[in-house]
């Protein structure tokens, strides 16, 4: 039977959707996503989620709620570790629990535990358990799994070629043509932050588009090969144990050391636990690299577009003046 599988378009969506899409399509399911974040969706999330939760969790809950009547199952995986070294933020780890027990309505949650450090919950066993839940033959599950792995590689390739996740996702799952690369502006910035902030135009107030219109060419941490990032020494006695934070911090070091960018913006969300530390570490690092101006931008559900725009323009002006361009 063909079920409708709902995938909330937030958090891991930006890095995992092509794989999940390929897998569920391979199983003969219909994949439905919640689409772009909207004001209504965010308001719903804010209303349902705990007031103390961070902005991304509120956005995610909003996405979950917008899907609940349209699908048979909601895919809310518990992703612990994907690279054998670092794990995700506690809120990712507890996400299925929060969705199952923290909302006022009961939802049909399809929950799977992915932790590649453990043989029982590695990538293949996790995918296999979903396939078996739907009583699919092993051969079909295996084929779907390989399609998922291929989609993952294809995404990585597109990202390191300079495309951003939204365009790459649309290309891989809907066959949309890739956009033309933006013309090189006279300034180049690195915008660092978690993909579900930076690449969600509603949440980030279209930060990337705004920079583009101000004549700034942007790199994000997805554009840097993961290997190059992992080689960066982030000058800590101990690695950051959250995957995205580790990458963001290392990306900051990468761009500070390369000095090929004219400025670095750190986009962070209110209430983000790991970011409270990452942001401070970036700020302290910025003191060691005075040649590259650094700005940190915090957003929450109360942020106003005008305020963000003003700060952005001021920063761009400052960098431009400094460069004499």
């Amino acid at each position, binding site marked *: 039977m063909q079920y409708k599988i709902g995938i909330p378009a937030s958090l891991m969506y930006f890095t995992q959707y092509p794989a999940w899409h390929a897998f569920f399509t391979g199983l003969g399911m219909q994949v439905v996503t919640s689409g772009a974040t909207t004001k209504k969706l965010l308001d719903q999330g804010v209303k349902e989620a705990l007031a103390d939760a961070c902005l991304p969790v509120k956005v995610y809950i909003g996405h979950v709620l917008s899907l609940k009547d349209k699908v048979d199952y909601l895919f809310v995986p518990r992703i612990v570790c994907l690279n054998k070294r670092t794990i995700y933020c*506690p809120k990712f780890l507890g996400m299925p629990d929060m969705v199952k027990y923290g909302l006022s309505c009961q939802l049909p949650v399809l929950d799977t535990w992915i932790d590649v450090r453990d043989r029982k919950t590695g990538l293949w066993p996790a995918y296999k358990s979903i396939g078996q839940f739907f009583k699919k033959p092993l051969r079909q599950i295996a084929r779907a799994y390989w399609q998922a792995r291929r989609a993952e590689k294809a995404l990585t390739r597109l990202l390191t070629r300079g495309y951003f996740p939204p365009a790459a996702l649309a290309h891989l799952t809907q066959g949309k043509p890739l956009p033309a690369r933006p013309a090189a502006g006279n300034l180049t910035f690195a915008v660092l932050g978690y993909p579900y902030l930076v690449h969600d135009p509603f949440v980030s107030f279209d930060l990337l588009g705004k920079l583009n219109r101000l004549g700034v060419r942007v790199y994000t941490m997805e554009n840097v090969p993961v290997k190059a990032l992992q080689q960066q020494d982030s000058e800590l006695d101990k690695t950051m144990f959250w995957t995205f934070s580790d990458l963001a911090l290392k990306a900051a070091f990468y761009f500070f050391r390369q000095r090929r960018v004219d400025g670095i913006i750190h986009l962070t969300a209110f209430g983000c636990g790991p970011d409270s530390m990452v942001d401070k570490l970036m700020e302290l690092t910025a003191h060691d690299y005075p040649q590259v101006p650094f700005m940190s931008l915090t957003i929450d559900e109360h942020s106003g577009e005008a305020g963000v725009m003003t700060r952005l323009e001021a920063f761009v002006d400052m960098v431009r003046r400094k460069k004499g361009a």
Partner: protein
Amino acid sequence: MPRVTFPHMGESYRAFKMLLEDLGNEVILPPRPSKRTLDYGVQYAPEFACFPLKVLMGTYVETCQMGAEIIVTSGGVGPCRAGQYGQVHKKILHHIGYPVELIVFEPPLLHPVDFLRNIRRLNRARLSYRAVWECIKRGWRKLQALDRIEALTHVIRPREVQKGSTSKTYRRVLNYLDQATTIDQIAQAEAAALAELQALPQDKERPVLKVGLVGEIYVLLEPASNLEIEETLGHLGVEVDRSMYLTGWTRDNTISHTSITQQVHQAARPFIPLCIGGHGRETVGHTIVYAQHGYDGVIQLAPFTCIPEIVAKTVLTSVSARYNIPVLTFFLDEQTGKAGMTTRLEAFVDLMRRKKWPALSVASQPAAAM
């Protein structure tokens, strides 16, 4: 002699002071967290960092001003932020001009070599490993004594005849332990302290509510950070059972899980099946265990923006409904005021009272009489 300091966590400093002095260090005692500590913390720590990070930051700045050269603290493997405290604190302290050394103790079973190296660095008296072990054993015994004495005050306080007598006696008898150095002396001091507390005039007939205290370790263990919630509750006629003591926590994190912890993890399994860092899973598990043991309510203490506790709190709504136990959550930070907290506690106690003794009118209760 190097001047060593460590974070302030309840009364545990008495044991750590003895241990570090035995190893040949000069100890700079961390002051009890105060307004001044918080001001420093807020000034230097990241704005959205959790409350314990800020308090520790402030404590470190204060002790650095007093001349501390080495800070000894504990680490963690995450994914809670506490595991990264050391890194961030060190960077900030160096940045603001205190070139201190940080010695971070990670769980010894995971990093045995690091553990021994850290011990070596602190062992200025060049004691043999055997002698060091003896010192640790005595320090451990003192911690146990401190925990036992504190646990007893939670039982006696709601029953005390003269309001405030428990806290007064508690502060006095703690000093007995400062003079005790050998295992025997510590045991004697502990017995004397316990006896003196027991001897306080008590009203055994008084109807007393039982409340479990769950949440994040620092705000549970440091009364200055939770605005002495246990004392406030005791005076409201509530016997408090705190889910965590330093000795219990240390045992869980160094040797192996105690049976209680296993029971707690088992209880939490349907709701949170894995470690989400900090004490999120334990918070949920303890709440269920308290409900099963017939407690009248549970209070969750969590630092503002604490990630694991937010997950736990989200789930607790369902737990509270399913196990029919009232749960009150406090997210604590530097803005939390004692009066506001007391008001909420009074309302909560009132609610539990009406639930437990519907026939009794609220006015005749000792809480109102006191």
